[in-house]
């Protein structure tokens, strides 16, 4: 693909002709990483210590401004020596057409210190090594685990190529077409579980394959006339996964509830990988000036999602599922409708009004059937009366609202707005939710050198009656369960469906004590209060402080600094219960969790631009030096406090923490009109503590075989020296 793109780019380069200015900049150099670090190169691919090639280039041909020519081209490449390289090519005739080609690779390195006993990592079938000793009760009893552990790194690569074409025609017509192919490959993680219920299930984290391909197409035709714009567009997105399923050999020994053959060595589990799917959408849109001061814009879109990947069998063990599937594939179909109308007006010179109506519908036309599952490839297929019915979720969202802004004298502005939202859901605990949002704010620059802003909003969500067991009843064969039966605790209110008040306040102040000084401060506060005093998320809060400063003593020197403190807090309440009715109503089994995530970030930046080095270059131009120095320190801390009723036992958890520090220095020395030397240094340090990973090996949890990777920490120094030449 890269070769194809390059060839296309070079061919395009030939389009340009005389009356053009051709400019080129090439940077070549070498970089050195002092220590191998998988996470340092998370998205750049700079993982291994040692030397790397620095190669960037940019060639452009543009018309001489008064030549009458309009043809141009550009060819660029960044980070060619890295796994995160990017190539761009563009050619066209300004005002008539253009063609763009882009290619980008993006690695994604998550961890490299995982371990797994499975052979065939990255394939669709994982098996255990010869001599594997299974254990029924605990991973710790797997006596051959340690000797059979293989290193596993979770690494993915995304390659993204796109082609965009634009053509302008007479009378304001414009045609755009683009296509994009994304290829993603590598390994991800999945969990394979075998068992009939939560009590006897046994699981293992699995190295799963990633081999995705997504093609996206967009075509549009637009006409821009005097005071109006009309367009029609088609969007298509087609996802393909080369791997349909993942099977794995059960590493655990037999459980009494499992069917014979479910355990090691004959037992296998199988799960479905993400299915192929398509989405196509047609959109018409337009804008019109109703009066010299009022414009209306309208978007109407109609789309369809489809998914008809062939189903896997109920179980990898065909003997466990004698009853066939009700259908060979889902024939999943979701029709989407979008309508958006906006009216923007300046009826008075000082008044700006915007009104909008939005309608969004997800009409899920996927057929429903009764499925007779096999629990975790280990149980017998359920009887028809215990079958499960799929729930094709549908959703309708409508919004109507307006915002206004009125300019008062003395550079002061008032903002105000209101919005009403309505959501209707299928198969949900709540059929209808209504939200009213009120907004107000003021901004002023009436004081010399000071600008102030205050914004506040209040949002209230009221929902229809919460019927907690509606999803349960909808997924069971009618008459097979008691209408009063429940799955989740009857007092649970899911946060995205619950009655809620949301309040937000934001303050911002900017001060310019002198022309070359800037001081800024901002404060934001928000609170979500779930009004019913029941189980689920009770409250969440954000408090955010920010300070920043900038100083420009001369036109060649800039200094800036910032400090930012965010604190998210949330409280939830719940009750631990079992099937027996007494526990459902036992307040002694209540528990609550208070979490607090704190983020602190501060940074300094110094820019020295065009410093005179005190002597001239050979060609007589000034030998100037550009220097930039940055320091950033970002910390996060997660605190989780647990309280439990007298019938339960609980303890607080260790804090979660991360710290990320970056020092970067770059210096570019101009040695002639055309030549520069650039030196760059970056020091990055990352530390983290996570109780779910640290000190937790593959066999630390009795019923789950983990990867055993530690929370990431690294220290890396990256130095580059390169030569830039402009032609």
């Amino acid at each position, binding site marked *: 693909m890269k070769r194809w793109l390059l060839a296309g780019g070079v061919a395009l380069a030939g389009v340009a002709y005389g009356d053009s200015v051709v400019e080129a900049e090439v940077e070549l150099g070498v970089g050195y990483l002092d220590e191998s670090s998988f996470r340092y190169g*998370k998205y750049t691919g700079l993982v291994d210590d040692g030397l790397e090639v620095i190669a960037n280039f940019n060639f452009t041909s543009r018309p001489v401004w*008064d030549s009458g020519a309009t043809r141009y081209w550009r060819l660029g490449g*960044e980070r060619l020596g890295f796994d995160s390289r*990017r190539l761009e090519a563009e050619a066209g005739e*300004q*005002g008539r057409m253009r063609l763009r080609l882009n290619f980008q690779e993006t690695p994604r390195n998550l961890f490299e210190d995982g371990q797994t006993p499975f052979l065939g990592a990255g394939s669709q079938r994982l098996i255990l090594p010869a001599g594997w000793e299974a254990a029924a009760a605990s991973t710790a009893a797997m006596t051959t685990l340690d000797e059979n552990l293989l290193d596993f790194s979770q690494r993915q690569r995304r390659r993204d190529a796109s082609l965009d074409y634009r053509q302008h025609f007479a009378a*304001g017509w414009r045609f755009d077409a683009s296509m994009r192919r994304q290829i993603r490959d590598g390994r991800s*993680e999945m*969990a394979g*579980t075998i068992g009939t219920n939560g*009590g006897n*299930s046994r699981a293992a*984290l699995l190295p799963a394959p990633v081999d995705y391909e*997504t093609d996206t197409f967009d075509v549009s035709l*637009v006409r821009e006339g005097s005071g109006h*714009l009309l367009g029609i567009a088609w969007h298509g*997105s087609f996802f393909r996964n080369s791997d349909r399923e993942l099977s794995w050999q059960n590493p655990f020994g037999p459980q009494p509830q499992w069917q014979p053959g479910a355990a090691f060595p004959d037992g296998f589990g*199988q*799960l*479905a990988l993400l*299915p192929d799917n398509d989405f196509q959408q047609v959109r018409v849109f337009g804008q019109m000036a109703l009066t*010299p001061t009022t414009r209306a814009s309208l978007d109407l879109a109609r789309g369809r*999602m489809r*998914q008809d990947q062939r189903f*896997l069998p109920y*179980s990898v063990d065909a003997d466990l599922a004698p009853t066939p599937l009700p259908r060979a594939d889902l024939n999943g179909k979701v029709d*989407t409708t979008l309508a958006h109308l906006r009216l923007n*007006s*300046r009826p*008075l010179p000082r008044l*700006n009004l*915007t*009104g909008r109506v939005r*309608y969004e519908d997800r009409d899920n036309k996927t057929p429903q059937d009764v499925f007779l*599952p096999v629990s975790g490839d280990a149980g017998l297929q359920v009887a028809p009366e215990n079958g*499960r019915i*799929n729930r094709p979720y549908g959703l309708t969202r409508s919004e109507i609202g307006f915002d206004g*802004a009125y300019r008062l004298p003395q550079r002061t502005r008032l903002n105000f707005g209101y919005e009403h939202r309505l959501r209707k859901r299928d198969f949900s605990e709540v059929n209808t939710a209504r939200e009213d949002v009120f907004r107000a704010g003021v901004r002023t620059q009436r004081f010399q050198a000071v600008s102030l802003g205050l914004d506040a909003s209040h949002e209230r969500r009221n929902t229809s009656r919460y019927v907690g067991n509606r999803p349960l009843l909808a997924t069971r064969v009618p008459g097979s369960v008691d209408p009063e039966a429940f799955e*989740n*605790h009857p007092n649970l209110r899911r946060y*995205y469906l619950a009655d809620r008040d949301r309040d937000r306040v934001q303050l911002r102040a900017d001060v310019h004590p002198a022309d070359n000084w800037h001081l800024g401060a901002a404060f934001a506060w928000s609170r979500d209060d779930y009004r019913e005093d029941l189980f689920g998320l009770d409250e969440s809060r954000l408090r955010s402080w920010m300070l920043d400063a900038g100083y420009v003593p001369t036109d060649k020197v800039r200094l800036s600094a*910032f400090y930012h403190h965010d604190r*998210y807090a949330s409280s939830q309440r*719940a009750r631990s219960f*079992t099937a027996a009715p007494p526990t459902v109503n036992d307040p002694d089994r209540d528990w609550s969790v208070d979490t607090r995530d704190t*983020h602190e*970030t501060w940074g300094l930046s110094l820019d020295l631009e065009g410093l005179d080095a005190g002597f001239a270059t050979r060609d007589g131009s000034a030998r100037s030096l550009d220097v930039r120095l940055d320091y950033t320190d970002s910390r996060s801390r*997660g605190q989780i406090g*647990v309280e439990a009723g007298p019938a339960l*036992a609980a*303890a607080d*958890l*260790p804090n979660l923490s*991360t710290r990320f520090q970056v020092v970067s220095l770059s210096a570019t020395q101009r040695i002639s009109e055309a030549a520069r030397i650039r030196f760059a240094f970056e020091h990055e340090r990352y530390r983290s503590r996570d*109780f*779910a990973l640290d*000190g937790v090996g593959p066999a630390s949890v009795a*019923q*789950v075989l*983990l990867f055993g990777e530690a929370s990431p920490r690294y220290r890396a120094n990256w130095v580059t020296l390169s030569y830039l030449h402009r032609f």
Partner: protein
Amino acid sequence: MSFGVRLPVSRRMQAAVQGLVTGLLLLLCSPGWGYPDAVPAGEYLDRGVEGCLMCHGQGSQWPAHDILNTVHGVRGDGRTPFAEGQRACEACHGPSADHVMGRREDGGRPATAIGFTAAEPASLKDRPCLDCHQADTGHHWQGSAHQFDEVACTDCHQLHTPQDRVMVRLSQAEVCSDCHRRTRSEFLRPSTHPVRSGNMVCTDCHAPHGSMTPGELLRGTLNESCYECHAEYRGPFLWEHAPVAEDCSSCHEPHGSSHRNLLSRRSPWMCQECHLAQFHPSTVESGLGVPPQGASRQVLGRDCLNCHTQVHGSNHPSGAGLIR
């Protein structure tokens, strides 16, 4: 579609609201009393770019010559300010005879009709841009977040330089973070999209000139925008996870989080906010499940996802519990 706005107010109040709405509609349909932020009157010089470059050429105190090295300087494109029959610098800066010929009391020159200074209203500064770029900016500019907040085109775009920083991928995020400072900090958190490394830019998701989506996203809905790069989660699945199909941001923070995979809060507690079924989903998970006190499979490793791996939906006939 029915909004069914129920006003908990008296009839008099309802009448007042109706009157207000009628008044607003009349205002909207009116031709407007005075054109907003009209370009100050003045005389055009029509001397072409050469007249301006006498003072604003290379090496001058206020250089502007680089505009000729940009797309706006291509004379062959009849749409540009420097094309035949156009007004060159005055096409954007407005009538400038006073600026060239006149003198203020302090000896300085009066400003051009549009100086693109901080003191001028954004709608005035945007007028020359929108005269040509109405279609390029898209039809959502009027009423968009930036337009409504009076962010002018020139607050983000630099015209007198061959490389407009906001149009260059490696420098775009810096321009956006000049105002979106909180987002800048969010991208320094442990779990983020690859913006800091330059592999993604703000405009890969957002439409700064406005869109029909809250948050000014590129596609029609939040989920459609996420599916641009994560089409594998689009489905529909046989067994759907309702909030996933509805809104990715129910669980994920797009700009940055301290929890893995950009999750808003730490699991398993985040999962337990919605899943409180009998036995293990409702169990209190605490420090007793962490070594050395214990080793809970609901807390260690991938917590809930140690088993319920198909959290975005399952297409397996036995996958109702999202473990297949």
